[in-house]
């Protein structure tokens, strides 16, 4: 049926959106399997952010995830120095500083996500007020030039 086909189409496109990067990342993840195994627990805050972020665009996931990943580089550095072997996984994950870095990264993402609306609101109000004053000034100039009737179509002097 046309309706079911139409409703099915976006779903398929959505699936494709996730599948392609997953398919591209899969060989890398398999090739760097110890790194992958270290990153999975390190990126748990990102997973949480993904779960609590229902808004389309998933900006919270991106915000938290990008800085969480940056913080997780500590683990990667440790792992790669240890030869990136499966045996280095447990010692790497036992590094408290690594956890601190990953979680601080994720925390920074959360903080940015929390502070940004406040900053945006202040900026928007400032911008709005500035524009409004410019508009009022331009209007006053028009009234000075053309008189009160410019404000509206009523009370105009006779025009033939």
């Amino acid at each position, binding site marked *: 049926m046309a309706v079911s086909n139409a409703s099915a189409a976006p779903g398929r496109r959505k699936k494709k959106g996730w599948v392609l990067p997953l398919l591209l990342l899969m060989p890398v993840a398999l090739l760097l399997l110890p790194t992958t195994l270290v990153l999975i627990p390190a990126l748990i805050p990102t997973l949480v952010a993904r779960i609590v972020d229902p808004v389309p665009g998933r900006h919270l996931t991106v915000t938290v995830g*990008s800085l969480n990943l940056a913080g997780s580089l500590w683990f990667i550095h440790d792992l790669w120095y240890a030869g990136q072997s499966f045996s280095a996984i447990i010692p790497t994950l036992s590094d408290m500083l690594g956890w601190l870095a990953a979680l601080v990264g994720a925390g920074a993402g959360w903080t940015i996500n929390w502070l940004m609306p406040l900053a945006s*609101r202040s900026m928007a109000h400032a911008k709005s007020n500035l524009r409004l004053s410019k508009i009022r000034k331009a209007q006053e100039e028009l009234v000075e030039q053309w008189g009160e009737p410019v404000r509206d179509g009523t009370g105009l002097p006779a025009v*033939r």
Partner: protein
Amino acid sequence: MAGDSDRVMLGDRFEIKPAARLSQFDQGAAQAFAAEDHDHVGRKLFALVAPGNLPCRGLHLPERKGTLPMLWPEVSGVVDWPVGNQGGAPVWGRRPALVYPQPVGERMLAGDDQPLPRLNEQTIARTLIKPALVMLRELGHMHIAHRAIRPTNIFYAAGNSGEVVFGECFGTTPGSDQPAVFETIENGMAQPMGRAPGTQADDLYALGVLLLILHLGRNPLHGLGDEAVVAAKINFGSFSALAGGEKVSPTMAELLRGLLSDKVSDRWTFRNLDMWMLGQYFNPVLPVLPQRATRPIRFGGGEHMSKPAVANALAFHWDEAVPFVDSGALESWLKRGFNDEKAGEPLALIRGLSYSYGPSNAAKHRTVSRMINFMGGSYPVCYKQIRANVTAFGTMLASIIDQPSLRTEFVEMLRGRLGQGWLDHQPKLTIDEVQARRMLDTTEKVIERPSPGYGVERALYELDPGMPCYSELIGDFYVTSLKDLLPAIDAALPGVEAGTMPVDRHIAAFVAAHIGRPVERELALLANVVDQNAYRLGVLRLIAAVQRNHPHHDLPRLAEAMVAILEPVVESFHRLKARAEIKDKLRQLGDRADFEQMAELLDDEGPMRRIDISGFEEAQRSYASLEMEAVWLEQGGLTDPAKIQASARFSAAITSTFLASAVLAAFAIYMAV
């Protein structure tokens, strides 16, 4: 203007003295005053100051070739004249004035009630006809009719007998001062101001009456009213009516019958008279009397036997005429009295025409008027209280324009096309009548329109192009030409209240009739009673149109008044700076009295106005657009929490991605090193 001085100069030579009346030389409404010739002190002169509300034909006289046995103006022109008195100071206006030498001899007859001298045939020929011939020959060359030949307007050349000098004839409207007895039936029936300017034939008729009553030594029709005089002439013929049964010699009878013929084509001409004086014999002119009915008809207190007699009675008894004609008694008399069963056909046509033109409530009056025309033929157009020849409609209207009821009757007459109907009924038209038809056709187009520049005022100036402007503002300045209009307005303004408009209905009509090109747009603006600015622009444009035809820039008071009048128009410009600029420009143009430039500057379709309107519309749009944006901002266009939230999330994602990218880049560099 004459200023504070009482000296009134006509040219540089003749002084007229307003304080020195010479009422013995008055001519109808024209008053006589003492005059002095500064080049020949001691000459006895008098000046006739003509009324300011009628055309004066003495102002445009051709050069005379020889001495005439009549009072001929030494000089004529329009002079400054005290027309009134305000708080002891004279109010100056302008009047036409004619300076004449005082007659040496006495006036033949001091008044109409004075006894007439009785003159024999030889005396008449020598003392009257001889100078009359000289005068009529010369006037004929100049195409002027005297129209004032009567005993009270004749002077003896010396003393109180002998050869005569005819009186002046230019101070008043032609024929208006003549008693009905000296006028032909057509003119005698008309009201004095409704008499035709006339031709030499009218002068010869008047001369015939003069000769007859002087020969008889009495006027047999003396004491009769105009209606009775005309009725007598209709019923018996002019000669018989005036002779009153008295015998005159065959040669005199031949002369008088010729001069007093009621049929113009049979009337003696100047040539006949000249030849008679040389002893030529002419076949006597037989009187042409109207066809008599087999039985009389009673109307207006008398019995009438002919159609012209009934026409005359109808004209003088209008109130009775309407029910009389309506009753069918007249139709029945026309059929039975003349054994004419087909008489009903023209009457049906008359009724049809009467109902076709003019206001419907006056159809019966128009029927009476057309009946008079049908029965009288060349008799004047009669309508209610008006009796006028078509060539004298202008002067007739001028004499009644200040009387609302008569004015309404005159307008009804014009709307009913009674003048055109009269002309259609004539077997042959004179040059004056052809011209009158043209004027009536022009008038017909404007008489019904009530707005300024049209209506009865316009009719007044269309019907007589020499008519002075009747405006309340400049009526005292005797303006007969467009070139004198603006200077007259300028001179009149100091005497009126501030804010008085320099154009009224009469001035608008006067301009429209004289300017010779369409001024409909200006008149349409003047008719705009709702928009005062349009009206004021109309005033300016009309004045500018006159100035274009007759450039005249020494008009400081008019210019000042116009600048003041136009202030609201300037205020109607939207751009405030433009108003100030236009005011300055207007003042500069006012200093030069340049009304054309003023009109261009303020023209509602000119560049200034167009730029102003388009700029204002653009400004209104800009203002509205800004207002919409302001409202949007005030309603949280930029500060909507949901929008801010969405934007903040996006900004946060961008910021953190940027920071993470920087860390990753640093990590990559570190690992590479």
